[in-house]
Structures are given as C-alpha cells and as structure tokens.
C-alpha cells in the first residue's frame, strides 16, 4: 500500500495497476459515451481514446481516488473536442433514426422470443425503457449528460461539477431544466397512450 511509487513501476506493473483500477469502469464509461454520441462506433472510438489518454496521464492519477469520475471527465472533454470538430459539418445523423436502429438492434436474439410470448411484465418494462430512452435522446446533449450522470450513474453534485468543469449551482440549475424538459416529453407520451396523470 505504499504511495508515490508510480514512477518506479515497471511497465508490466503499471499496466496491471491501470487495468485493475480503470478497466472496471468500462461498462459505465461505454454507456456514457453511447448516450452522448448515440452511435455505437463513435462510442467505441471515444472510449478507446479516453483510455489511451488516461494511460498517458496515469502517473497523475492518485491511486484510490475516484477513478470513475476521473475517466468520465476525460471522456467528456474528448467528446467536446470531437464534437466541435464534427459540428463544423452538417449533422451526421438524425437522432430519432439512430434510436430506432438501436432499439431493434439492442434486443438482438431475445426480440423474437419477446414478441411471441405474450405481454409479460418484462416486455412492458422494455416498452417503458424504450420510451424513456427516446425521450432522453431528444434532449440537448448538456441536459442528457446531467441526467445520465446523476440518475443513471449516481454521481453527487460535487462530482458532477468536477466532471463537467462547472460550478455546483450550474449543475443544479441544469439538472432542474433537464428534468422539466424530460417530464414534458414523457407527459406527452403518457397522453398519447391514453394515460392521465
């Protein structure tokens, strides 16, 4: 448990430590990347880029501190840089199209089974999930981001402020506006389905 031995580590030791500390974050990190880019290939690239950057700066990472928040911050910054480059060109994809693609693709082998078995609670749960996902995906990326960080990944406001490089007050107000916007979209859906709140 000795500290500050980072510089003396052999490459093998460094790699092992890197993998042990940072690879467990792969799943949430990939999910975050996907929710930002709404594209599986872009998410893949973004996650790879994030890990390579993290490796380059691994000596600056303090062992035992919040690896997840650290990686999320690197990924968010990479996304902003990429996004700026791409935003010079016309929008690459129509989000609703991607979401449709994703929904059918995601169910994969299970989809056939799901449609032949009758309305079990699981498929109802899926329907809700799909609806939540498409409502979320129509939100501006800044709004999507705070909702994912807070509600899906369970980061605190303080951690979110660090990941996003904004004051806590801004985290709060952004989250508030994001939720109002999401609420509006889901209420519209509930109405079209004939539900009244």
């Amino acid at each position, binding site marked *: 448990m000795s500290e500050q031995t980072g510089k003396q580590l052999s490459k093998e030791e460094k*790699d092992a430590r*890197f993998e042990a500390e940072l690879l467990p974050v792969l799943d949430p990190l990939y*999910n975050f990347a996907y929710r930002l880019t709404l594209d599986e290939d872009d998410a893949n690239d973004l996650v*790879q880029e994030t890990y390579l950057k993290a490796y380059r700066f691994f000596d600056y990472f303090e062992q035992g501190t919040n690896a997840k928040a650290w990686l999320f911050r690197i990924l968010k910054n990479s996304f902003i840089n990429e996004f700026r480059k791409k935003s010079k060109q016309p929008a690459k994809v129509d989000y609703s199209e991607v979401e449709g693609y994703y929904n059918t693709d995601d169910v994969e082998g299970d989809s056939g089974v799901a449609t032949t078995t009758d309305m079990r609670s699981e498929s109802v749960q*899926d329907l809700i999930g799909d609806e*939540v996902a498409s409502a979320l995906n129509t939100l501006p990326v800044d709004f999507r981001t705070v909702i994912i960080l807070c509600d*899906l990944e369970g980061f605190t406001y303080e951690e979110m402020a660090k990941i996003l490089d904004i004051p806590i007050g801004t985290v*709060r107000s952004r989250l508030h506006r994001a*939720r109002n916007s999401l609420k509006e979209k889901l209420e519209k859906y509930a109405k079209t389905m004939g539900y009244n709140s």
Partner: protein
Amino acid sequence: MESKFTEMYQKEPAEENGNGCEQVINLLDLMVDGEASAEEQHFFNKHIEECVNCFENHQKQKLLKGLISGHLKRVIVPESLAQTIKAKIQETI
C-alpha cells in the same frame, strides 16, 4: 425583543400562503438526489405532510428519477473493446 417576536409571528402565515411551497419546489431535486441538508430535509418533510400539492410533486419527481435509474436500458459493451484497449496500452511505451 418584541419586534423580533412579531417579525417571526408575521412570517408564519406568509409561509402558508405559498412561500413554503416555493422553497419546497426548489428543494425537490436536492431531496430526490439525496443532496439536501438535515435542516432542509426537516423543513421539506414537515411541509409535505401538510401540503398535498407539494407531496404529489415530490412523488412525481421520485418517479421521474426512477424511470431513468430503473428503466433505461444499458447498452452492452462490445466484447472486443477491453481486449483492444489492453492491446493498445501494451503497445504504448
């Protein structure tokens, strides 16, 4: 002393006339996210015991958070990704 007392006394009915609701609405996110202080929690819980509107708003806010945390499907990480990352790192000096 007396003026302070009347000041406090005057504040109460004002709170019942909506000021409390406004404060409670501002605390909704903090409450569902577990970020409210003990004092804020106490104020909030006391208020929603007596205010139906704010009680319902709180239920809705919890529901909304639950929709994301409980129903949003996680995408599956491509199997090759971890290997690709490990390989790239090993190449890096």
